[in-house]
């Protein structure tokens, strides 16, 4: 019983923290769903610590703990991959912004916008020869 208390309080603390972050709009909407589902899992797991054993049996995994560990490692790795992707994308965006600033500064100095204006349309975000990134969406 003490185990359930420990896990349940941890799960609830995480859920509270997440809800608060979402409520204060500190997390973007796209992450909200992800974290709410995660929090629900954590709470469910903390209330029924023996639950994973049933699923593990069905999947042929020897113990529920192994299954939980495996799934959490996979989950954390994918989050990390997503965040590095996101960081690269943001880096490209700020890079383009700073390029724009430099070009605008130059234009303002030379004051010859009339002769040949730089294109003012959106910049295609292609950070590397990896063309797949394509337009920013």
């Amino acid at each position, binding site marked *: 019983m003490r185990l359930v208390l420990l896990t349940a309080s941890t799960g609830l603390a995480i859920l509270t923290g997440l809800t608060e972050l979402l409520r204060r709009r500190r997390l973007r909407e796209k992450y909200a769903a992800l974290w709410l589902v995660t929090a629900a899992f954590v709470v469910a797991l903390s209330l029924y610590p023996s639950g994973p054993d049933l699923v593990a049996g069905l999947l042929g995994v020897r113990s529920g703990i192994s299954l939980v560990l495996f799934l959490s490692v996979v989950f954390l790795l994918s989050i990390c991959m997503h965040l590095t992707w996101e960081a690269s994308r943001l880096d490209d965006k700020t890079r383009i912004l*700073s*390029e724009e600033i*430099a070009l605008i500064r130059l234009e303002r100095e030379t004051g010859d916008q009339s*002769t*040949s204006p*730089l294109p003012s349309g959106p910049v295609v975000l292609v950070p590397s*020869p990896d*063309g797949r990134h394509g337009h920013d969406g």
Partner: protein
Amino acid sequence: MVTTVERPVLVVVPALNEADCIRAVVGEIRTALPAADVLVVDDGSTDATAARARAAGALVASLPYNLGVGGAIRLGYRYAAARDYHAVVQIDADGQHDPRYAHALLDRLDAGADLVIGARFAGEGDYAVAGPRRWAMVVLGTVLSWLSGTRLTDVTSGMRAASRPLVEVFAVQYPVEYLGDTVETLAMAARRGFRVRQVPVAMRTRAGGRPSQRPLRACLYLVRVLLAVLLALIRR
């Protein structure tokens, strides 16, 4: 987009804290290529680089913070693409490139090439390296020569010239990572069917000293070269 004065060539000079020699470099470029415009891309310098370059008669684009050589050069290509320049010449701001060789690069462009590298080991000049740094250059040279179908001996040279079609490609896709600006751009150009060629140029001793020859630094460089080559090969 009609320009009254013909401005076919843009010389892009990426500069980071080069206040000491930027004036001389810009002056030399303007003497060697009187018809060309000089764009100094000030890559977040904290000294008087921008002001001195402007005083020397260059256009100056000041980046708000440091983007690295690749980022600075991409800005140059974006500018060149937007302003209808026919060719871009890249020259380093530290004075190691002799702008008089820019003519050789531009002539080679006219003779039918899209990317011309000013190579330090192709007969002229007295630039020599040894150890892991040398091996790194051999690896680079071999892989990129194979990719581009011509013998390239100095792929990390920052003195280059690019034709208009390539300028348009580089304006939207210019690798900005370490070594990407030299190695990956070559691979990109070659893979897209652009003609890559090299011409011999002499290099002067850099004002800031030669590249480090310390073994550890040189080995790290070799590792980064291998990574850059790997990325260049697997990226589209």
